[in-house]
């Protein structure tokens, strides 16, 4: 197995895979605070995140891992501690998509609400995925990108006819406070730049990769914005109540009465991609620990089992409080995200300069 990711694979992740994580709770969450202005906080988030992606990809030019970069400046032990802290952050990042996924599976894949055990098999898959080295993900993205693109385009095509875009007017209905609150809490869904940090040193760096990556991310963001517009155009004032947005917008397509829920083809395509996306922060976290401790036989497998078992136990313990956990993360702890996805690359870039000068 080749150990370097191709630049194409990074672009595919940024343009096709990353947007999929923004389709579950985020649309309803934005609609709650920003109402018909939901596109603006989302656009701002995408712009900031694209900037962070740009910075991370600039760091990729050094072709060194996060641990190696920190080790050059702070020494091995401090670097290991810092990388482990970053791994904890990625573990924290995984909570929100995991909870989303679990609630999505329980409510959309079954006619009657199943027990939490129905979501259990996800962790078996996640153990297998996390035990694989990160480089294997590049090929996965190659194959998942068409699924993600087809899923999103299919849903948009089936939904767009039912949308009333007039519902998005007048602009500014939510006011400045609504915009700020929506922007702040939506930050919890935007950590894609941080997901790239464990891949540092595993990129096949190419000239212009940073701006191309940022543009790809903005391209994916544009598709999400279009979806948000369609979503609000369909549900209007009750949009805040429509969780799992992407699985609901297309069910008003007129052909469904004859053909059945053909939109499930696209929803399941996206669900397939989501299974990989949700496990990505866990995989990144494990990669960071492996960098800190050093590659050892079965370490990855052990960490993978431990982390997934821990998260499954957490889900079981919090079974009746999942929504509360979600709101704590998105409404209270949202400030943690920019510290890592923005500050880490911003702080690492001068380190690079310092080394050059020395």
């Amino acid at each position: 197995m080749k150990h370097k990711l191709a630049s194409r694979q990074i672009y595919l992740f940024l343009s096709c895979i990353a947007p999929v994580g923004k389709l579950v709770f985020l649309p309803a969450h934005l609609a709650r605070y920003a109402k018909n202005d939901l596109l603006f906080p989302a656009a701002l988030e995408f712009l900031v995140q694209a900037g962070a992606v740009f910075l991370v990809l600039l760091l990729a030019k050094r072709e060194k891992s996060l641990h190696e970069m920190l080790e050059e400046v702070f020494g091995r032990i401090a670097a290991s501690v810092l990388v482990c802290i970053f791994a904890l952050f990625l573990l924290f990042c995984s909570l929100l998509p995991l909870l989303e996924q679990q609630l999505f599976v329980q409510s959309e894949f079954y006619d009657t609400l199943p027990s939490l055990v129905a979501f259990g098999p996800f962790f078996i898959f996640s153990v297998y995925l996390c035990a694989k080295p990160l480089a294997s993900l590049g090929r996965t993205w190659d194959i998942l990108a068409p699924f993600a693109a087809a899923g999103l385009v299919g849903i948009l095509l089936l939904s767009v006819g039912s949308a009333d875009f007039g519902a998005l007017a007048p602009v500014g209905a939510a006011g400045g406070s609504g915009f700020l609150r929506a922007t702040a809490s939506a930050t919890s869904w935007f950590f894609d730049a941080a997901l790239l940090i464990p891949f540092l040193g595993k990129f096949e760096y190419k000239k212009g990769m940073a701006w191309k990556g940022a543009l790809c991310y903005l391209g994916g963001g544009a598709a999400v914005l279009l979806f948000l517009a369609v979503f609000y155009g369909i549900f209007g004032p009750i949009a805040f109540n429509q969780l799992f947005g992407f699985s609901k917008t297309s069910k008003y397509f007129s052909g469904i009465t004859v053909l059945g829920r053909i939109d499930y083809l696209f929803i399941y395509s996206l669900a397939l991609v989501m299974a990989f996306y949700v496990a990505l922060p866990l995989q990144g976290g494990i990669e960071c620990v492996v960098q800190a401790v050093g590659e050892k036989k079965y370490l990855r497998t052990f960490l993978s089992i431990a982390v997934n078992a821990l998260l499954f136990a957490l889900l079981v313990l919090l079974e009746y409080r999942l929504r509360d956990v979600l709101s704590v993360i998105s409404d209270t702890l949202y400030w943690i995200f920019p510290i890592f996805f923005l500050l880490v690359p911003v702080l690492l870039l001068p380190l690079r300069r310092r080394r050059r000068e020395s």
Partner: protein
Amino acid sequence: MKTLSGDLKKDVDALKKLLPAEDILTFSFSSEKGLDFCILFADPITDKELLGEQVIRPLKHFSDKPTADMVGSFITSPEMKKEKELQKLAAEVLAGNPVILWDGADEGVVAGTKKVFTRAISEPSTDVAVKGPREGFIEDVKTNTSLIRRRLKTGELKIEMLEVGRRSKTFVALCYLEGTAVKKTVEEVKKKIGEIDIDIIPDSSYLTHFLASRPYSLVKQVGTTEKPDIFCAKLAEGRVGLIVDGSPIALTVPYLLVEDFQSSEDYFVPPYRATFTRLLRLFALIVAIYLPAFYIAGQLFKLQLFPVKLLLTIAGSIRDIPFSPSLEMLLVLLVLEVLNEASIRMPKYVGMALSVVGALVLGETAVSAGFVSTPAIIIIAFSGIGLYAVPNLIEQTSVVRLAMLLVAGSVGTYGIILLTAFMLLYLVTTENFGTPLLAPFSPIVGRDLRDSVFKYNLGSLDTRPRTLKSPNRRRLK
């Protein structure tokens, strides 16, 4: 290593000691000048008529002092070699080549008068083409290599004979185009074959286990074909081929999953038609694997999967069925697999009766008796047909279909999605001889997509697949 002593009686005794079997015969005779000769041969596999004509008759007139070179030039067999070691001489006898000894011989002469049992070259039943060549490989390695040599009249075609199997000493022809195949792959294949320490190799399928990077995997990792035209096309793309004596199925490496969605006929019809049929095969396979699973998951966990009218029809037909949907589907699948297995091995005239029993008795009667529902039979029948759209993957896909069915019955649609994710991850991380199994889709190799599930015009296929890393890139100038 024991060699010939020069004493005819002693040498014949020594060889008989090595070959005590009753069907190893000796024939002693003297030339007109009184020189004594003895021929050792394996009775069932030596062509005695040729032996008489090409060896014994000329040697009857032998008059000089015999040496291996002299004897060799006297006999008229086109295949001849000299050998000193007793063990090697014994091996030649066992391979059907008679050994000629004489008094004072320090080297024996081996004549190539092996009896060759072959069936006529015919169209392989598993790979039928309406257009294009109809020849198929047979069980004889020499005939098979001749079919290849006839198509590739170039000195670059290398055919190396290897021997595998402690007891069977089966010939394995390693074929490749020098300068087109990757040297490293050729060496790796040779190394892997050289390391095989098994008593017999009855068929080429035995070799696949040793060539695979994941030998216990369900996933196919070595390409197979029964057609020399496909075999040659694969060699021309830069692959390495293996033909095993006694097997009509040739092997090729590296293998890409997409190969099995292609048929030789695709290259003899317009590219639009070829693309359509390839996509159709892919679609049929996906439907065959997923349709029964989604039907079960829909019934058990998510009724919204069915359109309302269809749901009413299904509800009506399953009302009186005594089994759960998954058990019902498993039973129907089991019956289909049994029918399939039995119809392949039964004599043809019984097979006709079996299809009547299968279709009428088991199908019609089971429905009217209320054991199984009509939709279940329709779905399994369609799935069964769909699997045969890609016949080379039947062994794998039928197991995957069963796994999907079990997962759908226990976890529902989310289980199907997770199992698909599992399979995708497993497939993208599988590679053999340094070539990813899912290429050119993962990793994406843009140019190779032109001959994948899509088929471009021949003029656009001017280079060999990049995935195979052939040193000789251009094939169309």
